[in-house]
Every structure is written in C-alpha cells, then in structure tokens.
C-alpha cells in the first residue's frame, strides 16, 4: 500500500511550515486567554490537541491516494447537500440560525466541509471537461449550478462569511481554468444589479447593519464599530516591535472581541508589532505560494486543480481575516487558518494541507 517512494517524496518542508505557524498560534492563544477565567483545560492546551489531531489526520489522508476524491466527489457533494438541508430543518426548531449538526459525540458544520468538497467537485468537473480556449457562457452554466445550490443553503443559515468563502474559492478555480474576456466582463456587469437586488431582498437586517457599520464605524460605536475601533487601536499601538508577549493592554484588559478566535491576529499585532506581522505575512505568503507550487509540479490535471483550490481556500481565509482585523473588510467571522483557536477551522485547514502533501508525494507516479 504505502510505497517507499511515497515516503521519500514526502514534503517535510510544507509540514514544517504548517506546524511552525500553528505553534506561533498556540503561543498567541496562551497570551490572548491569559486573563480569562480558567474553567477546565486552558485554550492553548486544547489547541495543541487539535493540532495533534490535525497531524494524525494528515497521516491518514496521505495514506490514501487523492484520486479517490475524483471518484467520490459527487457522492460527497450529494451527502453534504443533504446535511446542509438537515441543518436548515433542525435549525428551525431551535429558533436560532443553526450551522451545527450534532452527531451526539461531536458536532460539526457541514458548511465548513463544503469548502473542501466544492474544490473536489470543481477539480473533477474540469478534469473531465477541459476547456482549453477559455470558458464561455455555456461552459459556465454547469459549474454555476453546482455552486448555486450550496451557496443558497449556506446563505439561508445564514452564514455570509462561509458563503463568500465558498464563492471565492470557486471563482479562483474558474480563473485558473480560464474565462473568456468578453464573458468575464459581461458577468461582472450583470452581477452589479444582482448585488443591488440581493441587498434589498436577501440580506438580513443585521447583515446590512454590519456592512453599513463597516463602511462607517461611527454608526455603531457600541457594537460592531466598537470591535473595529478597538482592533485598530490594538494593531496600531503595537508599533514597530510590539508590547511584548502578554504585554498587550488591549487584549489583557479585554478590549478586544473574540480575541482568541477571530481576532487572534489583533492580539499578535499588538504584542509583536510590525516586525511580527511582517514575519507572519511572509509565512502565510509562503504557505499560499507553496500550495501553488504543488500545483505547478503536479503533472496530473485533477491534482493541479485540487492544489489550486486548496491554495485559494487558504489565501482567502487569510486575506479576509487579516483584512477584518486591520479594518479593511467587514466583520464576517472568518478565522485565521492554523492561528485562531478552534477545532473546526483547524480540521478543515489540515485536510487542505493533507491534500497538498498527498499530491506532492504522488507527483512522480504519473
């Protein structure tokens, strides 16, 4: 089963990079939660468990040839669509916007897994029907339908953050496959009135509020605006070298919202300054480019597409989260991969990384 060659081709560099970023994340979580009331296991220890779980997951995923994804992508897609529907139905009874599916021993968000599955389905589809002259309107129809189903269900939950990520991942893959210039321009032009319609008919009141508050934080200085203002103060006051580990007043005095999850990078910026941020951004850029280089080295079209999808997933998470923390994107609740506290995000990211490693180690088999 596990060929010797596979082991020799294992990409230790990528795994090392991932563990390095996650490790920095643990240190940062320790600082962000230092002033929390301690109940049970500290967050940074729990995060270590998640990382360990993620590494075990990588080992498992790497032992299976990623081409099984090609065979099963539509099945996975179908199952996830059903789960998303179940979440909607179950969510109604508990009165809230439920994204979680409780399986008794643990609960998870089907919408989170959809990010990976849409990558697999797109990779599968574009392997089967390569379009070497760029995609026209007709070629876009089927991928569009594949995307529309999950998007609608996720938006219905409502989870705008995840929906936009799924959309951006799909869009990135389309751009990789290639879209005709005229088609691209007309779709963009057609999208503008649709966006207006969506604003009027589909967005919930609180979602509109968030976007308006983002455009003008002064609208709501006690709510979302407060979070953005406080986060900017934290980042800005970090200066060149930062206030030092556990020295951030913004975080230690609880001025930051969700400072160990979505706003973890804000804590990091305050304590490690511009220097730290520069290092972090370089590490993340490395990660994304590494993903693209996996695609480049891979000779198999399916693998190439998968790798591009995973790189896109990492890229958009990073950009949206950091953009939110530094006040250039709205607060949508997207975690920073490997860095924010949280099991769901850690597992999704690790599955993505595992797929990259998997492609990399089998690149000479074709």
């Amino acid at each position: 089963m596990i060929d010797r060659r596979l082991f020799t081709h294992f990409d230790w560099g990528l795994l090392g990079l991932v563990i390095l970023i996650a490790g920095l994340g643990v240190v940062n979580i320790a600082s962000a939660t230092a002033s929390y009331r301690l109940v049970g296991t500290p967050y940074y220890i729990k995060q270590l468990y998640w990382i360990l779980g993620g590494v075990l997951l990588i080992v498992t995923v790497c032992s299976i040839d990623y081409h099984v994804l090609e065979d099963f992508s539509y099945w996975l897609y179908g199952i996830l669509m059903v789960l998303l529907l179940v979440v909607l139905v179950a969510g109604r009874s508990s009165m809230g916007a439920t994204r979680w599916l409780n399986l008794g021993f643990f609960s998870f968000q089907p919408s989170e897994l959809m990010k990976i599955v849409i990558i697999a389905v797109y990779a599968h589809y574009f392997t089967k029907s390569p379009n070497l002259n760029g995609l026209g309107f007709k070629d876009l129809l089927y991928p569009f339908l594949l995307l529309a189903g999950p998007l609608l269900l996720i938006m219905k939950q409502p989870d705008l953050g995840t929906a936009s990520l799924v959309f951006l991942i799909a869009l990135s893959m389309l751009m990789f496959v290639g879209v005709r210039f005229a088609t691209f321009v007309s779709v963009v032009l057609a999208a503008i009135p649709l966006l207006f319609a969506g604003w009027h008919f589909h967005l919930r009141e609180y979602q509109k509020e968030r976007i308006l508050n983002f455009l003008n934080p002064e609208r709501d200085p006690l709510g979302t605006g407060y979070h953005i203002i406080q986060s900017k103060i934290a980042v800005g006051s970090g200066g060149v070298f930062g206030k030092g580990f556990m020295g951030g007043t913004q975080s230690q005095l609880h001025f930051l919202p969700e400072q160990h999850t979505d706003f973890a990078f804000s804590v990091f910026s305050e304590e490690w300054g511009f220097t730290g941020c520069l290092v972090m951004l370089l590490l993340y850029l490395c990660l994304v480019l590494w993903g693209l280089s996996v695609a480049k080295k891979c000779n198999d079209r399916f693998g190439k597409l998968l790798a591009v999808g995973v790189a896109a997933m990492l890229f958009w998470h990073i950009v949206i989260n950091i953009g939110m923390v530094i006040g250039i994107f709205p607060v949508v609740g997207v975690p920073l991969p490997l860095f924010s506290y949280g099991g769901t995000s850690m597992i999704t990211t690790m599955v993505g990384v595992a797929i990259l490693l998997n492609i990399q180690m089998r690149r000479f088999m074709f």
Partner: protein
Amino acid sequence: MKDQPIVTENSGPNKNLYRLSIFAAAIFFLLLLRLWYLQILEMENYQNLSESNRLRLVPVAASRGTIFDRNGKVMVSNRPSFSVAVIPQEVQNKEVLLARLSQLLGVDRLELLQKWEKGKGRARYYPIILASGITRDQLEILEENRMNLPGIDIQMHPVRDYPNGIIASHLLGYLGELSEQEMASELFSAYNPGDYVGKSGIERNWEKELHGVNGGRQLEVDAMGRVLKTVSEVSPTIGNSMVLTIDLDMQKKAEEAFGEQAGAAVAMDLNSGEVLVFVSKPDFDPALFAEGLSSKQWNEYLADTRHPLENKALKGQYPPGSTFKIITAMAGLEEGLVDENTSVNCNGSYVMGNRTFKCWNRKGHGTVNLRKALRESCDVYFYKLGERLGVDKIAWYARKFALGAPMGIGLENEKGGLIPTAAWKEKRFGKKWLRGETIPISIGQGYLLMTPIQLASMIAAVANEGTIYRPRLVRRIINPEGQVIREFHPEVLARLAGIKPGNYRLIKEGLFAVVNERGGTGGMARLYEVKVAGKTGTSQVVKLRDKGGAIPYQYRDHALFVAFAPYEKPEVAVAVVVEHGEHGGSAAAPIAGRILRQYFEGKGIIKKPTPVTGNAPEENSSETPVSDAVPEEAEQTVNED
C-alpha cells in the same frame, strides 16, 4: 482580440499559476501596506489611544416589555433587583470587609469568599458579584454602612415580577440565562452574555418583541483598568408590551377551581378564537426562574411525576372519551344513518362477534334516541352508529373539525393529537383495521387522542355552526411610547362546509339536555342565569376488569367536559380535562361551570354571588340525576366463550 482567453492553461506552461502567484503576493503586499500605515505612520496616535483613552464597554440590560391581560391588567412586569459586587483591587482589608458584609447581609462568610475566589482571574477592576437578589432591608443597611465598605459596589438590574403570584405559568413561560448555544446563534447577536431570555411560553415565542434593545456605557479607564468616567451612554430601550387575549379574572377562577388537581382547561371566544383561559396544572413558580433557578428546585420540577413544567393544554394528548360522541353523532346525521327519531334499544351491552362491548350503565338505557343518547351518554347507541359509519367516515368528519393536527396557536411544541384511520393503522403497525376497533373509536377511546385546545375548538365549532378559528393568545403589541404596532385579527383555520343547519340544532339540543335535563350527565355545569350546553367525557387510562375498591391515582380515568354558552346565542366555549379525575360529570363539569360563571359575571349578566346563595348547582343536587356520580364507563371485555 476580445474573445481571446485572458487566462488559459495553454497560454504557456503554468502561466496562469504564475499570474495567480503574482495576484496573491500583490494582495499580501496591500495588507502589509495597511499594517505599515497603522503600526508605523499612525503608531503614535493609536498608542495614545491605547495608553490614555481606554474605552470599556459595560452593557446595560434592557427591561422586558410588560404583559397585560385583555382588559389591561398587568400579568408580568419588572422590578429592580439589587446585587452586591466587589472590586478586589479597591479593597484594602479583605478579611475585615468579608466579616462586615457577612454580618450585614446575614450571609455565610464562606459563601461570600467562594464567590470572590471564583470571580478571580478576570480583568482588573472588574466587579465580582458576591450576592444577588438582596432585599430592600438589606439594601438600606448596606447604604447606611457604605462608608465602611470600601470596594463594594451596589448594582441594579431589572428582573421579572409576577404581581398575581403563580398564575398562567405555562402560558407566560419562564426566563433563563442565555445559553451558550443561543449565544452562538445570529438571532441573539445583539444580546450580552448573562442576558435573560424567554425559555418557554409567551416569553419565549415573543422574545424578539419583549426583550428590548440593550444599552451600554462607554467607560474611560486608566492604564490600570480603573474607571475614570463615563464617556458616552446609550440607554437601553424597553421591550414592547403585549396585550394577551387572556381574561385574568377568569384565569384566576379557573385555577382556583382546579385546586390541587392535575389537568388543563381552555376557554375561548368562539366567534374569534381568542383564548380567554389557558390553564395547565400542576404548575411552577416563574418567579423562581426570574433570578436563576437553583438546580435543586429544577430537579424537583423534573422529578415530579405530575410534570409541572409540561404545558398540558397544548402538549397533553388525551382520548376524548364521550366528548367525541359529538363528532360521531354529526357523522351519523350527515350521512343520513340516523335522524332525531331513530331509536336503538340499549340493554347494557353490545355484542359483536365474540366480543361484548358494555355500556357504562350496565342496566341499560332502554329505548334511546339521539337526544337521550347524548344526554345520558349511552354508549350502545354510538357503538351501533359507529359500526355502521366505519372508522374512515368518522375520521373524515373529525378531520373536517381540523382535528389530528396542531392548531398553530403559536407556542412551542404544540401537539396534534391523533385521528386514526384504517390506512394509518396499516402504515403504523402493518396490520389491517379490525371492525371491532371502530367500536371504541365511536365513543372516543381506542387510538384517538386530542389536546385540550382541540377539545375547546371542537365544541366552539359546533356552537358557532361551522367555523374553526385558529386559537390566538395575543391581541396586540404596543411599543414603549404606547402606540399599537401590531394588531391581531381572527383567522379562520377551516370551515365545516355543507353541514345542514338542522343537524347543528339536533346536536345542540342534545348538549343542552346533558346539562339541563333530568338524567343528563353534566348537571354540575348548570348556571341558572344563562343556559349552558355541554358534554361529559371519561377517558380510560388503563383497562381494569374490576374497578371495585380504591384504584391507585395513576390508573384512574381522566375526566373531561366541553361546554358552550349561552345556548341560544353562543359566545364562549370551554374544555376541561382533569387528569385521573374519574368522572367528567363530577370532576370536570364544575370547573367548566365556574369558568363560565366568571365570564358572565365579568359581563355583568350574572350578579356576583353573596356567600349564602352561592354555588347554585349544588343546591340542586337532589334533583340532579344519580348518573352524575355514577361512573360513566366505556369498558370492553373479551367474552370468555
């Protein structure tokens, strides 16, 4: 030119990948530029903000809206609750302070210490709550000794107040602290941790209206976290008030009439569907939930075998017993199987194949027509009618009454009851319907299940001759300025189309006889000023061969009564279920009578009784037939032969 692909895979090996890499790097560079702007160019500005102008946000909880009855009487309002908090950093001598507090409040020193220790590890200068829900007296003592208690802060927040004590608990519902699950939901995004939210009843289902909008105070704190001043304050907005359809006076009388018995009662305006009385017994004390229920009390409620937390008016499903004879009779008349003169001989039992179905009156009722069959609740008459109708015909008429499905009253987990059909049994048990199974159905036993709200709706539809209204609990919603922002109107759920008016008359005459004629089973619901019509019912809990001697409480039959009044021009419908009350005529009918009496007293039609002449129905007990006290049974036994 225009149709050239901008990015395609054959535009050079991996050229598109190269472009994507450049794009990624460019975006990262933009992020870096922004960081440069914030952390280097604007550094001084932000450092000043973080050093000197620290803003802390302290939420201020909104008061929930008031809940009124239909006449504007307060059912639930708010009162201030005071709690004692400590800011540890401002305390000089912890031991002395604890000793003083313990003495002034009369609370154990260890208990205070425990709370103090538990609150440690939070941000500096964050108050820790040591005691909540302190009384006015304690508050006064504390205020007097304020000078001797450095570091102590007295905080006020609104809690739910129940001026009428324990009343309509299941309808109003209780509150509880926002759970972690709820906190994660977008619907509660504007809530603060520790907020109280409705967990059941009106409080839960109208949470959005009642809660109001939390306010907040922006406090300026110094580098140590000490509060310097309030920078800005957004006052909370009180929640909207709700005017219910409930009549508080009727509700009170109904609950009094129940006493210690378990069960449910519903009364409604039968021309609009407005619910006037909504009782479920035993009940719980919502005031205990207002400031957080102790787990001991919670476990006691859960362990009680009579289920005080269950809303029996909506979730209690009971076999309707003889009250269902109304539906069987309607089906028989409409199908032309019987008319007012059709008579049947009742000798105390009915034999079908090798089974004998007994009438509750073992001696038999003799010759019985429809009026007598309803009045004396003769089982044999309905056995014979039911057999000729068949289960599916009966079910068809029951469905016309909108039975077998939740009525959409707008509270959580309303049950729908069960109207069995042959197809239903086939699907549920994979077995064919047996003819013998139709016999108990015709007198409301067997698989049949109805909720008290459905019982009330059924009798209302007979009384108003064909309209089933959706039961409603809310009349209007009023904003804090006193303007009506939403008004609710009657909603027709279904109409009984095509029923001959003469048939309504025949059934109503029978129901009138039940309450008002010699031999009727419902005499204890009689009022002298207003004519009442109704039907008793007894629903079997378990089959007991021998009902002699004392039966254990949990095996006793449920007692039911449905009624409407006035007979000539019906206004109000009532349904009462007394769990294990045994006989509808003796346990449920008096409660229904009491509720109806209050309705007409409230309208000024019946004068308030003076103590001596009160309880009119009882005076008449010599005249009321014996059958009131006699078990009205529906028993079936398998013949030994």
